């Protein structure tokens, strides 16, 4: 059982590590990490704010032990969308290319196949998280001096704990988005459909619904996963966001598993 899952993991990794996908994803992750971190510091004196939706993040806030990861945690949503796209495309393409039948002939244990694929994509998400963390924290540290932000607390024991916590939270968030993408890929069996529906929901539908009725933000899946990455917000507690995210991810995984194991592979 374990050896077959390991084989599936490495087979999937052969696909994930191809330069166009791996370097393309790292490129996108790097771009957003550098952009958000730079804006956070370069717009520190801007009256329009330097954070998400015009929020003003002051020098005093950035000087706290959590200052090093301020930009990294706020990228969670963007990283999540990238993960959703990668997970959805990698899963749906098996149907659209017809390669699922090859995989199932070589590995008929469908639950094992799903576990192995997911394990491989989890490692991919770890790579995304680490790259983003290094760049975000690195750019923040590089720009902090020029903007008179005190970094003395960033790397003391409290600061290191904050970094570890944020790494974990961002990873959980990315993984949650990715699993939802994977479920969409299995459900819709088309990379274009699953990515467009996922991105449309997260970037447009949730924002419109949240703007019309702000109380819904406490329940929308994308917002919960984004809140997990930031470690909680003024409106949504971390525990609430994590619990609700777990429920959404569990439902997505259940749907994905049932469809993947029970559905005929006809075309």
């Amino acid at each position, binding site marked *: 059982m374990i*050896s*077959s899952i390991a*084989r*599936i993991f*490495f*087979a999937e990794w*052969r*696909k994930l590590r*191809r330069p*166009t*996908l791996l370097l393309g994803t790292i490129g996108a992750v790097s771009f957003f990490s550098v952009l958000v971190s730079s804006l956070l510091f370069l717009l520190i004196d801007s009256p329009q704010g330097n954070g998400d939706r015009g929020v003003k993040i002051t020098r005093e806030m950035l000087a706290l032990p959590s200052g090093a990861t301020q930009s990294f945690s706020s990228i969670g949503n963007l990283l999540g969308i990238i993960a959703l796209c990668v997970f959805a495309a990698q899963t749906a*393409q098996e149907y659209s*290319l*017809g*390669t699922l*039948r*090859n*995989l*199932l*002939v*070589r*590995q*008929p*244990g469908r639950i094992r196949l799903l576990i192995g694929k997911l394990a491989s994509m989890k490692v991919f998400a770890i790579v995304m998280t680490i790259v983003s963390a290094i760049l975000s924290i690195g750019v923040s540290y590089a720009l902090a001096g020029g903007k008179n932000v005190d970094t003395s607390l960033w790397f003391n024991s409290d600061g290191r704990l904050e970094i570890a916590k944020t790494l974990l939270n961002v990873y959980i968030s990315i993984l949650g988005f990715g699993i939802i993408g994977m479920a969409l890929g299995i459900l819709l069996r088309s990379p274009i459909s699953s990515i467009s529906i996922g991105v449309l929901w997260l970037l447009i539908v949730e924002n419109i619904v949240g703007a019309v009725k702000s109380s819904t933000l406490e329940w929308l899946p994308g917002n919960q996963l984004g809140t997990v990455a930031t470690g909680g917000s003024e409106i949504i507690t971390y525990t609430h966001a994590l619990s609700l995210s777990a429920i959404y991810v569990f439902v997505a995984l259940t749907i994905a598993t049932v469809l993947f194991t029970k559905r*005929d*592979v*006809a075309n």
Partner: protein
Amino acid sequence: MPQLAISVSDLSKKYDTGFAVSHTNFEVPLGTICGFVGPNGAGKTTTIRMLLGLITPTGGKGEILGEPITSPEKYLSRVGAMIEGPAFYPALSGAENLKVLATLGGFPIERVDQLLEQVGLAERGKSKYKTYSLGMKQRLGIAAALLPNPKLLILDEPTNGLDPEGIQEIRQLLRKLADSGTTVFVSSHLLSELELISEYLVMLRKGEIVFAGPMQELFDAQQPYMLVKTANPSDLEKVISLAVSAGHKAHIRDGVAHIEGPAEWAGELNRLAFGAGILLTQLSPQLPNLEETFFEMTGSQK
């Protein structure tokens, strides 16, 4: 050891629109090449998918290499398959695509280069799959099917897109595999090719088996016939009348009279025609070939 590579009994797949495969029964002995033929939509691919555990039958049962098709994990490590044409990742090279499947199935990675060599893709193994011609894709599909060094090889239209030389190479490859003990179950529209290599045949029409057994048994059940041409085309009708009067079925197709009867009767027909003042320019006894038998048994249009 099972003596049968494939055995199905009452195997069915029913969709909302009706039966795709209805109560099929057939057996394929070990070590043979078995052709699997039928018109488009006859249920060949559905049957193959059921044999490989990709779709669940709605009725009946089947066994592959002595194991029930409800437990594909028990036999698929000994089965190679290419279903409905090759399907690979366009952005990966041919070799990398095979390595994905070799890793997944736990087969030695070194086999990839050997197989690329075997199917004539050694020089293009590092090229991306999306740059392959249809024939090269087909060859890669066959290489993937050979990865497990299979006891049973199931191929769906393996010669699609191949040039005559490629078709001949595949024919020789299948013959070689069968000689080394691999059972080959191959569906193809190239009936003349199947006739050359198959010992067994399973013929499907509208989801039902119309023949399953040794190829020779099929031909033995068919009537030999003669092709007849006359110097004057208008005499063909008279020849038909002569044949029918002598108790032989006959008809004209494409300006040639087809008259059922053994080769020994050709002399008598020639004598009858000569007596009626008809000059025959062609009188050639024929044995039915697979293509003609197929059209007759499946009711397909030639």
